[in-house]
């Protein structure tokens, strides 16, 4: 009795998990299928699963100037903003984790709220500001904006990590006449690398995926991949093969990066999620 009941629970679990996996993975599978289908025109009916795969779509989006400039924009903006947010984030996290000062709580609350408030609330005044500074459509603008909006997550994650490190050895080092900066470099940083690597990857993915700021603040020169793909959608409404190939190439970068840290992901997202 007990055994058959256990078996049926297991079957129910397996069923739920299978349904969920199909639901999660089928759309991604379908994107790949569409990208691999040779361009016979979109309106072809018949069984959509039967075709002979080809890489034509990938060749056509990768050749010429189709995607490359946007890819470079996304890459450079993502890397620089990630570096800056990590650099300033480590400093701020050390300050918040190791000093007790008036306004610390307010600073933490403010940092949290920047992370949670909707970016759309800041887009209009930032647009007018950058317009007045003649900085619209430059990579620098997106780098600055991304740095500012990635900082809260970096600071929060790194602050909690530093707080988990015992501070006895830091106190000893201070006693030996090191200043705080030296303590940070010599003692805190070596045990902070894993957390920094995880935060860096999450940040670069967030910058890579970002759409709203990029859509509003760029028009030609500084356009990033997500914006470029949506423009593709308007221009070439029917070339689904090429659009899918471009979308697949854009989406695969974050997935591969995060696969590297998937063991830390649960912890990382757990604190807030990456959105």
């Amino acid at each position, binding site marked *: 009795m007990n055994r058959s009941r256990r078996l049926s629970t297991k079957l129910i679990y397996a069923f739920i998990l299978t349904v969920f996996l199909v639901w999660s993975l089928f759309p991604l599978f379908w994107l790949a299928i569409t990208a691999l289908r040779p361009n016979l025109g979109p309106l072809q009916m018949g069984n959509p699963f039967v075709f002979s795969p080809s890489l034509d779509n990938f060749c056509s989006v990768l050749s010429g100037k189709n995607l490359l400039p946007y890819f470079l924009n996304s890459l450079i903006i993502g890397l620089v903003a990630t570096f800056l947010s990590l650099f*300033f984030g480590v400093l701020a996290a050390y300050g918040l984790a190791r000093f007790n000062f008036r306004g610390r709580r307010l600073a933490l609350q403010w940092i949290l709220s920047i992370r949670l408030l909707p970016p*759309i609330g800041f887009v209009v005044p930032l647009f007018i500001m950058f317009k007045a500074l003649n900085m619209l459509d430059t990579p620098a603008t997106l780098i600055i904006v991304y740095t500012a909006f990635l900082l809260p997550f970096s600071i929060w994650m790194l602050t909690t990590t530093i707080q988990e490190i015992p501070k006895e050895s830091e*106190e000893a080092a201070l006693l030996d006449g090191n200043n705080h900066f030296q303590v940070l470099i010599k003692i805190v940083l070596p045990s902070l690398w894993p957390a920094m690597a995880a935060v860096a990857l999450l940040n670069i993915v967030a910058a890579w995926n970002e759409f709203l700021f990029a859509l509003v603040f760029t028009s030609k020169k500084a356009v990033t991949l997500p914006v470029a793909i949506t423009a593709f959608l308007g221009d070439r409404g029917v070339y689904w093969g090429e659009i899918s190939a471009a979308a697949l190439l854009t989406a695969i970068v974050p997935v591969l990066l995060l696969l590297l840290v998937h063991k830390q992901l649960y912890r990382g*997202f757990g604190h807030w999620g990456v959105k």
Partner: protein
Amino acid sequence: MADTISQIRAAFHRKSYLFFLGPSLIIMGSLTLYPMVYGIKLSLTRYNLVRPWIPKTFVGLKNFTDFFSDEYLVKSLWVTFKFAMGTVALQVFIGLLVALVLHQILKKTSLLRFMVLLPMLIVPVVTGIIWRLILNDTYGVLNWIIQWLGIAPQLWLGPDLALITVIIVETWAWLPFSILLFSLGLSSIPEQYYEAAAIDGAGPWRTFFTITLPNLRWTLFIVLVFKFSDALKAFDTIYTLTGGGPGIATRALALYVQNRGFTDFEIGYAMALSILVLTISFIIIGPFISRLDKQYE
């Protein structure tokens, strides 16, 4: 000895925290606080960027009183509300269910868990594109499948179904997030609680309602705060999936602000709307912020 200890204490209390914290505060401040102050000023003006011959004029609170006669705003608040309720309901119930199943059968960091997370790692714009491919009424695979099953094809992105479709697509993308939070919550419940319940002879349902659910209160609270505030952020996927349409059937608040600001270039009014969105968001995240940071005091 007591002296040296107080010296250390003093070192940790000195003003040098400003050196560490200063640069970040300046960067974040100049891109959030300064624009807000400037934005409040903008919200009191009539300022249209495409009609530069009309000077920027001070109109007082007119942009805010205009809210009450703005049908499109009401519609978009309503869309946002339905979107929030739909995504919250689906993601809490299904998320908890899947997390419970995963908790029973999977190791903490298996690759399968990563695959479960996949949808939320996809660029949101690409999520929109994928589902447009699948849902297209004439050559989308979903209509092909249901026709094969003998069901009439549907206009998934038509006026009747578009909002429901958008809610389901958003759930596809972000269900992993609530699964992940629930998984973490579940793994933090001590095993002894369950052992004690088993000794007391509690069945699975009673165990769930007396042990699992009460211990997930904090997780549930976080999920709710995130999901409700995400409804105010919803932009990327809707933009690529429906563009807010058909008509304005799926134009959630963020899209409405973007439309007024960067299609109509009504900067003053768009700024007043931004302040409205931020205020609603503050009301949602306020209780969360005042509780969460206590954990890190």
